[in-house]
Every structure is written in C-alpha cells, then in structure tokens.
C-alpha cells in the first residue's frame, strides 16, 4: 500500500504581468518560502525538490532547474525536472507526490513557475518546422478548431464561453493572488471583445503572467504532526497520448477520460458531481470548462454547457463550483498554472481559500492538461485521511 501523503503547505506569488522587482531565482524563492512558512518547516526538513515549467525556449534559459538549485534549497538534494508542456505544474505535483507515496522521501518541495514578461509565448508556440507551412498562431490557433468541433457536436449556445470567462473573472476578484482584477468588467464587454481566433474572443483567453507556485508534501507522520489542517491525497494520475492519429477524439481525448477514471477509482468516488465540492480545472480558453466537465464525467456527454448555463459552476450558488480562484483565465504563469490548480484544490479542503472558499469543502479536484490536449495530470484531495 502506498504511503498516505498530505499537502502540508502552499505558497504562491501575486500573479501579474511583470514581476520586474525579482529575478527568476527571486521569484521561485518567494513562492518556496511561503510554502515552507505555511507548512511550518525549514529547508532542512525538505528531502527532495521537484520542479516544472514550460519548455526552456520560453525564457531562453536552458535547464533553469540547475541554475535555480540554490534558490530552491536543492543543493546536495535530489532535484528532478518534469516536462509535460502546459500541464507540467500538475504533472510535477503528481511526480513529487509519488516520491512520498513510494516511501522514498518524507517531505518534498515541488514548484512550478514562469516569467512570461521575459518570454514570448505566442512566438514560442508558433515555432515553424523547416520547410513546413507556418500558419499556426500560438495555442489559440491550435485549440480554436477543437472548440469549433465541440460547438458543432453539442449545438451549445454561442455565448457559453463568454459566461465561463465572466464567471472566472468574477471569482478572481475574491482571490488576491489572481492576476486579472477587472472590477468594472460587464458581461456585455466580454461578448463585445474582439475575436482573436474565431470562435475565441480576446476576453475568453488567459493573460500572460509572471508567477510561481509551491507545495510542500509530507508523509502520513508529517501530516499527522501538522498543527494546521492538511489536504490528504486521495488519488493522483497521469496519462498522455499522441496529438495526431486516425480517429483521435480531440474534443474528448481518451487520455483525459482514462486519467479521470483512474483518479476517481483511486479515491473511491462513484458520484463525481455529488462527491466533489470544488474543481480547479485547466481552462486557458473559456470553452474548455464545458468540454472538461464532460470529459471528466461530471455530467453526460453533451451536457457540459448546460451546467455552465444554469450556474452550477459558480462559487455563488453552484453545486459544483469550478475555478473559484479565477482559474487560468485570470492568472497564467504557464509552468505554474497546473500546480496552482492542485494547490488551490488543497487550500479548499484545508478551509484556507479565504474569500473564494467553498463552505465546508471536503473533497476537491485539481486538473491540468497540456501540449495538443494530450498530457493530463489530476489529483483529488480531501480534508479527511483516505481510508485505503
């Protein structure tokens, strides 16, 4: 049986367009210190460090985990880097958790980061292959055709995406760490914002953020010893698939479904919508909320947009609140974005999410995807220790 594993502490930086006051090492150190403070442990208590970020050509620093080793207190300790594109923050947390679950380490610090102000993501995601046709404009250009397919399959009303975007920006106002704080934003402004990658509007896309997120994970004894509430891991799973093969379901990829089935089975959850109290889901483009609601089995295939329309995913009054933190649509330091989802899920079940807390949350779902919607990382955390 795997060692029971808990989130002991979480640390985030305030997400914003430019953190010009800190270098990359300064940025990650800030998140790491906050996580250590929250976990009430010091550097000496950490046995290993697991780091994730977007591909190196974003900031143009090769293998930054090596140059960040000192800032992360990792000198002389095992230091591991995880690579799974946009899902990397989630995958990194799952890998870190596995080191505790396997009984290898007692406490592991895991951290994801991105300094988009020192990078050009659209350039990095539009790198042409030599002698091929270069017409793909960043991530939006890639995901727009998939969203169009979802709309065609489900006949979802045209403004569902705008509803998601408006909801997440309202949630962000309750999270002081969120990048976008658009107090004056109206739903009509979301609808009227310009089309970038039709059918994706400007307001339905994520911002470019600087930021880092860190989590301290501990074994059962460390979790039991904590003076603060901890978040127990009830399930953690990774899946991936190729991004182009005959018959690939791009809207609802098999790797996504398999990963969800695995993590819910580990957690012993059969009524997904009923038993999960909050979902932190990777939604960089608004339409991915209804798409993932279906793929993750929170509703029937074709019904995801109905949950959005009826307000089920709102913190205020919804039975399945999604992205109470404001989500990726409100903060996107790419390499950290997946880990933020995992960390925010943990904060919810610890009762430490502040103004965006779901009252009485006992189980929460953290989710990340990346690449051509081909890499998946998920975990379920609970306020109670898992029984098995």
């Amino acid at each position, binding site marked *: 049986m795997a060692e029971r594993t808990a989130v002991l502490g979480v640390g985030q930086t305030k997400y914003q367009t430019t953190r010009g006051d800190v270098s990359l090492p300064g940025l990650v150190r800030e998140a790491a210190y906050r996580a250590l403070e929250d976990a009430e442990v010091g550097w000496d208590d950490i046995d290993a460090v697991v780091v994730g970020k977007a591909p190196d050509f974003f900031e143009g620093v090769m293998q930054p985990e090596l140059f960040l080793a000192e800032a992360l207190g990792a000198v002389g300790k095992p230091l591991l880097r995880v690579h799974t594109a946009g899902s990397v923050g989630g995958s990194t947390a799952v890998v870190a958790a596995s080191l505790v679950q396997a009984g290898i380490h007692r406490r592991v610090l895991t951290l994801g980061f991105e300094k988009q102000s020192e990078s050009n993501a659209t350039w990095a995601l539009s790198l042409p292959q*030599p002698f091929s*046709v270069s017409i793909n*404009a960043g991530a939006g250009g890639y995901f727009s055709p998939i969203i169009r397919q979802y709309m065609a399959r489900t006949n979802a009303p045209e403004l569902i995406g705008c509803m998601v975007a408006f909801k997440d920006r309202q949630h962000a106002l309750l999270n002081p760490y969120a990048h976008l704080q658009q107090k004056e934003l109206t739903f009509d402004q979301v609808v009227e914002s310009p089309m970038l990658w039709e059918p994706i509007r400007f307001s339905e896309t994520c911002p470019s953020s600087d930021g880092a997120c860190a989590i301290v994970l501990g074994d059962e004894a460390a979790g039991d010893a904590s003076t603060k509430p901890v978040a127990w891991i009830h399930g953690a799973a990774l899946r991936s698939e*190729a991004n182009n093969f005959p018959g690939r379901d791009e809207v609802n990829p098999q790797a996504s479904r398999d990963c969800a089935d695995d993590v819910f089975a580990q957690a012993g959850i059969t009524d997904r919508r009923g038993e999960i109290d909050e979902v932190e889901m990777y939604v960089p483009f608004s339409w991915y909320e209804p798409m993932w609601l279906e793929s993750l089995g929170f509703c029937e295939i074709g019904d995801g947009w109905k949950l959005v329309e009826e307000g089920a995913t709102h913190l205020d009054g919804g039975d399945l609140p999604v992205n109470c933190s404001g989500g990726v649509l409100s903060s996107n330091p790419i390499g950290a974005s997946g880990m933020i989802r995992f960390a925010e899920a943990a904060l919810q079940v610890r009762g*430490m999410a502040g103004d965006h807390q779901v009252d009485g949350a006992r189980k929460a779902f953290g989710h990340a995807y990346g690449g051509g919607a081909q890499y998946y990382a998920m975990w379920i955390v609970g306020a109670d220790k898992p029984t098995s």
Partner: protein
Amino acid sequence: MSTDPSVTPAALSGEVHLPEKLADVEPVRSVRTPIRLEYDFIPGAASSGYLNAFADRKILGQRSPVDGAVFVPPRGVDPRHGAATPDYVELPDTGHVGGFCVTRLPIPGRDDLEIPYVSAWIHLDGADIGFLGLVAGIDTSEVRMGMRVRAVWKPDDQLGRTAENILYWEPSGGPDIPVTAAGTNAWHAKQITESEEQAAGEGR
C-alpha cells in the same frame, strides 16, 4: 498560506544594503539580449521522401502495416502501434476541411498573411489524419467543416523541396462531406462503412 500576497515572507523581509560606492548607481531592472541560432536541418528518412516529392508536385504519405491507415506528413511510424511505416503512398491534392480557425491577429514570421485568414486541418482524399493548411479563395465566413478543397500550387519553375509549394487550399466545389464524417470523425465513419459493407458481403 497567507491570504495576503502583499505580506513578504519573513525570511525575505530583511533589508538589502548596497556597498557605498554603488549607492548612486541607477539600478538595472532588465537587460535585453537578442540571440540567434543557425543550424543545419536534417529531416530524416520519412520527411526526406515527403519533402523531395514536393519538388515534383507530389504529396506522399505512409501506410500503416497494421491496419492500412495513411499518415501525412509521414513520420516513419504509426504512433498507435509503434509500428514502422516504410511504404509510401502518393496522395491526390484534393480533400476536405476538418477543424479550422479564423485568425484575426498577426503571427510571428508571416507578415505576408492578410488578416483575417483561415488555418485548417486539411484531410486529403485517401489520408487518415489531417495536416495544417491555409484556406483562401473564399470569404472567411463561408468556410465550413467538410468543405471540399484542392491545392493551389506555386508555378512549376518555383517548386522546391518544401510543403510551402502549396500556396493555399481553395474550394473545389462538390457536395460537402457531412460533419459527422469529416475531419477527425472520418476514421470512425470509415470503419462503420467498411463493417457495414463487410456485413453486406457476408449476407450474400
């Protein structure tokens, strides 16, 4: 975790004191360092065959030895089965539009593209995956999934060993492929049709 991001972690709250001789120096906040990298591109066996064929106005794919699925561009492997795909297949320059995007912002390195433009997954007749192409010769609002298209090539004297020989894809007329059998739906639609034909054959 502190719910207040403005609170500096205690360990970082100490003051930084500069040496006296640096006291009046303007702090450097960032440095811009443009870099460039030049490299030789060696495309590998499958891509070499594909790129060389373009010089003769031909589009080559590769066939899976497992179930006959045709991949374009060829990568030398069927990723579903981990099987090598040594056999090339010549494909026509006609097909249909699968998923597509109407892009309304410029992209790096393509100043020549007029905005808005349509990038689409082109599913060639006889191929079982799509590849990216530009769709033009039609108003962007008229493009649809399942629309039949054909390649518009550069003049013969400008052809090179590159996929850029195809300037864009234009509507070729004829009835659309139904959305349920277009793009990434095509493979499953074909399996169903084949099993129905097989069932009909067995019935005879």
